[in-house]
C-alpha cells in the first residue's frame, strides 16, 4: 500500500528525484524493461546489474566526478548509465563514431578517470589512448576487468551544490571545437522535469512500447525516449545496427511498438520505402520527430501515407533537456509547419533584439525558462552567460507565433548545420582544417540536401595554389580526425573568403 502511494506521488511529479531513483522505483518489477537483438532484461535485472557494477567500480576509489561511456546503443549502455548514477557520478557519453582526437580531448576536458566500455570497443579505446599522459581506467563490462592507461592524475574540478537534485547528472556534447568546447550540464532536476513534462504531454503509460533508433546519448533520445519510458515502467526496444526502413516496419509489427522518435531524414526513408504497406503498424500511436527541417509537402505525404499514426512535431535543444514544444497529432494538419506549443512546465517567449516580446507574426528569438533549462556549459562560464540571461535560455532559434500561440521556426542565429538530425558546428571543422599545412583560410557552410536536410561543404583558400593538395586529401584528413558525419561532402577551392568589417567570416 505504502509503495503504491509513493509511486502515485512520483507519477504526479516529484522533481527532487535523482536519476537512480527512476530505476529504484522499479527495482522489484519483473517486467521486461529493454529488448535488444535476442536478449532482454527486466527492470529488476537492470537494477541488480547496475548496482553490482557500481559496487565493483566503487572499489576502484574513483577520484573524478565524471565517468565516460563508450558503448553503442545496447542493454549494456543502459546498465553503464545507471551504474554511474548509482555511483552518484556524472555520466559523460561519447559517441562511438568519435575519432581519436575527439575522444582524448573529451577525456581531458571532462576529466574522465574512468571510461566504461565492452570487449568490442576496448581495443579501439586502448589504441586511441596509447601515449595519453593522463591516467584513465577503462572498465570492460563484459569481463569486469580494469585496464589502466597513462600515469599523471588529472586535476579535478569540484562541483559545488546546495542540494543533490541540482547536481549534474549528465554532460552532453553540443558544439565542440577543441579550443572552446561546450558540454551541456543537465542536472537530475532538469532531466526529471523534462521526463514528467513528456509523460504528461503525450499521455504515456506503462503499456507503451518505444522503439529506439537514435543514438542513446543524443539529448533527444536520452530524455524523451530512454528515461521517460524507464520512468513509467514501459518497454524499450532498441534497434540493432543502422536504421533501415524495412527493419523499422518489421520491428513495429513484431513488437507491437506504440511510439517512435526520429529525425526528418529517417521519416523520409519510411515514406520512400516501397513495402511500407506490407506491414501491420496499427499499434503505432505516435511518431515524434524534430531536429531539422521537415518540408511541409513531405509531412503532408507522411500524414496521408500513415493515417493511423499520430505525428508529433517537436522542438527542443540539448540545453533545455531537450524538449520545449510539441505539436500534437490533433493539430498536425490545421497547424502544419508549426512546432506546436510549449509542453507542460516549460515557459517560452519570442523576443526581439531589445528583449521585448514580439507581436503575432513578428520574428524574434525563442527564449526558454523552466526547471528543464541546463545548469550551464561545463567549465565555460563565458559561453553560459551568453545564452542564459535572467534565468532565460536564449536558443538562437528564430520563430514567429500565430494568433493561437503556435510557434513556427523560421531560421537560426547560430552557424549550426543540421545534417540528418545531427548538429554540426562549422567552427569545429574549420579549426581542424586550419591545422592542415596547405590551408590558409576555410569556411564551412551548410548546403541543402534532400534526405539529410543539410550537409557541410568546405570553401578553402590554399596557402599556395601550387601545393597540389586535392579535395580527396582534405576530405580524408577530416575523416581521420572527425566523426564521419562532420566530414564535408565536397570541397570548393576559392580565391578568397568574404569577411565582415571586423574580419569575421561572412558565411552567407
Amino acid at each position, binding site marked *: 500500500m505504502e509503495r503504491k502511494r509513493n509511486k502515485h506521488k512520483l507519477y504526479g511529479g516529484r522533481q527532487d528525484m535523482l536519476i537512480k531513483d527512476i530505476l529504484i522505483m522499479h527495482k522489484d518489477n519483473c517486467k521486461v524493461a529493454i529488448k535488444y537483438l535476442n536478449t532482454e532484461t527486466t527492470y529488476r535485472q537492470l537494477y541488480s546489474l547496475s548496482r553490482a557494477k557500481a559496487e565493483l567500480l566503487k572499489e576502484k576509489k574513483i577520484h573524478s566526478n565524471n565517468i565516460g561511456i563508450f558503448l553503442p546503443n545496447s542493454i549494456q549502455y543502459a546498465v553503464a548509465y545507471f551504474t554511474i548514477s548509482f555511483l552518484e557520478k556524472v555520466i559523460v557519453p561519447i559517441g562511438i563514431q568519435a575519432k581519436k582526437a575527439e575522444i582524448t580531448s573529451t577525456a581531458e576536458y571532462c576529466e574522465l578517470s574512468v571510461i566504461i566500455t565492452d570487449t568490442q570497443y576496448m581495443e579501439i579505446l586502448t589504441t586511441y589512448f596509447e601515449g595519453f599522459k593522463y591516467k584513465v581506467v577503462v572498465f570492460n563490462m563484459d569481463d569486469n576487468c580494469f585496464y589502466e592507461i597513462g600515469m599523471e592524475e588529472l586535476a579535478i574540478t569540484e562541483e559545488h551544490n546546495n542540494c543533490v537534485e541540482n547536481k549534474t547528472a549528465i554532460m552532453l556534447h553540443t558544439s565542440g571545437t577543441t579550443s572552446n568546447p561546450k558540454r551541456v550540464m543537465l542536472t537530475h532536476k532538469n532531466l526529471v522535469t523534462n521526463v514528467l513534462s513528456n509523460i504528461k504531454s503525450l499521455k504515456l503509460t506503462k503499456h507503451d512500447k518505444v522503439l529506439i533508433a537514435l543514438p542513446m546519448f543524443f539529448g533527444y533520445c536520452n530524455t524523451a525516449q530512454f528515461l521517460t519510458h524507464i520512468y513509467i515502467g514501459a518497454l524499450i526496444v532498441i534497434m540493432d*545496427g*543502422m*536504421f*533501415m*526502413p*524495412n*527493419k523499422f516496419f*518489421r520491428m513495429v509489427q513484431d513488437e507491437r511498438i506504440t511510439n517512435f522518435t526520429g529525425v526528418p*531524414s*529517417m521519416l523520409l*526513408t519510411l515514406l520512400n520505402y516501397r*513495402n511500407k504497406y506490407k506491414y501491420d503498424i496499427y499499434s503505432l500511436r505516435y511518431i515524434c520527430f524534430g531536429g531539422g527541417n521537415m518540408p511541409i509537402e513531405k509531412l503532408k505525404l507522411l500524414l496521408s501515407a500513415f493515417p493511423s499514426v499520430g505525428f508529433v512535431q517537436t522542438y527542443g535543444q540539448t540545453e533545455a533537456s531537450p524538449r520545449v514544444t510539441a505539436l500534437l497529432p490533433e493539430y498536425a494538419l490545421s497547424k502544419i509547419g508549426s512546432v506546436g506549443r510549449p509542453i507542460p512546465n516549460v515557459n517560452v517567449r519570442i523576443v526581439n533584439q531589445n528583449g521585448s516580446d514580439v507581436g503575432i507574426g513578428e520574428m524574434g528569438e525563442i527564449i526558454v525558462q523552466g526547471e528543464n533549462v541546463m545548469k550551464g556549459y561545463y567549465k565555460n562560464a563565458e559561453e553560459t552567460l551568453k545564452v542564459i540571461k535572467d534565468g532565460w535560455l536564449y536558443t538562437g532559434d528564430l520563430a514567429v507565433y500565430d494568433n493561437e500561440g503556435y510557434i513556427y521556426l523560421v531560421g537560426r542565429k547560430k552557424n549550426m548545420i543540421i545534417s*540528418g538530425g545531427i548538429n554540426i558546428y562549422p567552427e569545429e571543422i574549420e579549426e581542424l582544417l586550419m591545422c592542415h599545412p596547405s590551408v590558409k583560410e576555410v569556411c564551412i557552410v551548410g548546403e541543402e540536401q534532400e*534526405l*539529410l536536410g543539410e550537409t557541410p561543404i568546405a570553401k578553402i583558400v590554399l596557402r599556395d595554389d601550387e601545393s597540389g593538395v*586535392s*579535395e*580527396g*586529401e582534405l*576530405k*580524408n584528413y577530416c*575523416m581521420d580526425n572527425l566523426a*564521419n*558525419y562532420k*566530414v564535408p*561532402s565536397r570541397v570548393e577551392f576559392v580565391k578568397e573568403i568574404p569577411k565582415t568589417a571586423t574580419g569575421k567570416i561572412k558565411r552567407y
Partner: protein
Amino acid sequence: MSEIEVRLKKVIVKNSRKEILDNEIADNSSLTADFGVDSLQMIEMIVDIESEFDITIDDEDTEMDVLTKYGPLKELIIKKISQKQ
C-alpha cells in the same frame, strides 16, 4: 575486374564520404568502417544499386553483414542479376 565490379565500385565511390579509388575496395572492405558510409547513405546507395543494375534488393537481403561488406554485396548483386536473366 568484371563489368559488374566496375559499376558497383563506381556506386560505392559516389556514396562514400571518404575519397577512395576503385582499387582500394577489396572483398573484405567494410563500407561503414573503412569508407564512412552511414545509415542514410546506405539507403541511398541501395537505391543507386537498384537503378544501376535494374534489380530489387529485398528486405531479407538487407541484413547488415551482406550490405556493409563489399564481397558479400557483390555476390548478392551477381545473384540478383543471374535470377533476372
